[in-house]
């Protein structure tokens, strides 16, 4: 480790790191997609009447919330080939393990987000919809779901940010996203100037999360405007 600081390395590293941004986005995007589906299933289980399914869904959420991402990542990475011992998983891309891990985790978080959002909507909304002749499915899709989505939006945005940040841990199992690229650059430099590279990396994450935050607060503003109109008329 050298004892001097050269900011030129920060600007030098930025384009190299940015060229791997699509990997970060792809992993985060797929995890959000599958995680949301899983979260929806879990939320339905939690809101259902069957005691067993409520217990299972709550237990799943508690366990996943108590597990550090890195532990879950390694459990999936080492555990999946062990469970599927009959098939050969050696050629499987590392990003698949990462997506599985973060989908499992995101599902647990989303199930809570969706459950609280659903419960925040007044029961009378559903009853009113059914009383004017909508079927239960229609009432859910046209009346409850749009309102619940607005309630869930800020939490969804926060969870998305968390997911993107936790996704940086994927470098530990060898995925080359922006974090993985950063550690590659550092080992190419024989561990010198690592501070500059990490600063460049943190800059990218910072800008990304500010952008995502702005995007979600804009969305929230647009949708809650509609909500007010519905309330007043």
């Amino acid at each position, binding site marked *: *480790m050298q*004892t001097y*600081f050269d900011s030129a390395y920060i600007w030098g590293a930025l384009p190299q790191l940015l060229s791997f941004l699509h990997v970060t986005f792809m992993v985060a995007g797929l995890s959000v997609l599958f995680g949301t589906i899983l979260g929806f299933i879990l939320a339905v289980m939690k809101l259902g009447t069957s005691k067993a399914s409520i217990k299972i869904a709550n237990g799943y959420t*508690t*366990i996943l*919330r*108590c*597990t*550090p*991402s*890195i*532990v*879950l990542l*390694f*459990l999936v990475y*080492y*555990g999946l*080939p*062990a469970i599927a*011992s009959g098939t050969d998983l050696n050629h499987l891309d590392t990003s698949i393990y990462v997506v599985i891990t973060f989908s499992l985790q995101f599902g647990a978080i989303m199930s809570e987000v969706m459950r609280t959002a659903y419960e925040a909507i007044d029961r009378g909304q559903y009853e009113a919809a059914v009383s004017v002749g909508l079927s239960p499915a229609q009432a859910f899709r046209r009346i409850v779901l749009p309102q619940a989505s607005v309630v869930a939006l800020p939490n969804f945005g926060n969870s998305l*940010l968390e997911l993107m*940040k*936790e996704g*940086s*841990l994927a470098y530990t199992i060898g995925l080359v996203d922006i*974090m993985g690229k950063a550690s590659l650059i550092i080992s190419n430099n024989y561990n010198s100037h*690592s*501070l500059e590279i*990490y*600063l460049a*990396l*943190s800059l990218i*994450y*910072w800008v*990304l*999360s*500010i952008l995502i935050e702005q995007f979600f607060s804009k969305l929230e503003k647009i949708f809650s405007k509609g909500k007010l109109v519905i309330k007043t008329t």
Partner: protein
Amino acid sequence: MSVGLDVPFLVKTFFVALSGVPIALLITIVSLLIALPLGFLLALSRINRIPVISQLARVYVSFVRGTPVIVQIFIIFTSVPLLLAPIFEKYHVKTSIYDINPIWYAFIVFSLNTTAILIEVFRSAISTVSKGQLEAAYSVGLNNVQAFRRILIPQILVVALPNICTATVNLIKATSLGYALSLREITLKAQVAANVGYNFIEAYIDIFLVYLILCSLVETLFKLYEKRLRKYKAAAA
């Protein structure tokens, strides 16, 4: 990879992982002790719009919340020696910078990280307590410190407690990243034990169980404490 789990190893490593719990808890407690007052004061400065400090706190929170913990760890781990080296040289401190126990870095990283999270937690909690409470406290003759200690803080704490609980659990989970500082806590200890025979699945199951027990315990403790604090809320309502 062998089929089935190596059960004796599983049991043995469980205790190895368990022996890392004190370090993880030590980091958590020290970080919380630093972050709780600091977060509270900075939250107050944000609410009262104290110039400079308020803006700095805002940028600070945005940075910590916008970057992964692992990157923060690496930044502190690489920048602190750079910053300390001239100071050590100037005052002729004999100890080498690279011999510092990594736990000090962990204290720095996790207190800085938790402070930022708690600033936001306290900020939203303080804003839920109505201003009338403070004014009423003043009007019966309490001074600023008394008003905060006896009237406001109990109420703020009730609101903030669930979020503090989440922050604590997240902090405990984040200590698993101490491996990057070669800190001998739960994760690293079990990993080292697994390296001998490549029993990684067993080791990770153990780590998983230890964190599960630890975090469930912490959550239960917070729930109990919350119940005790509820009485303030009942009085307020």
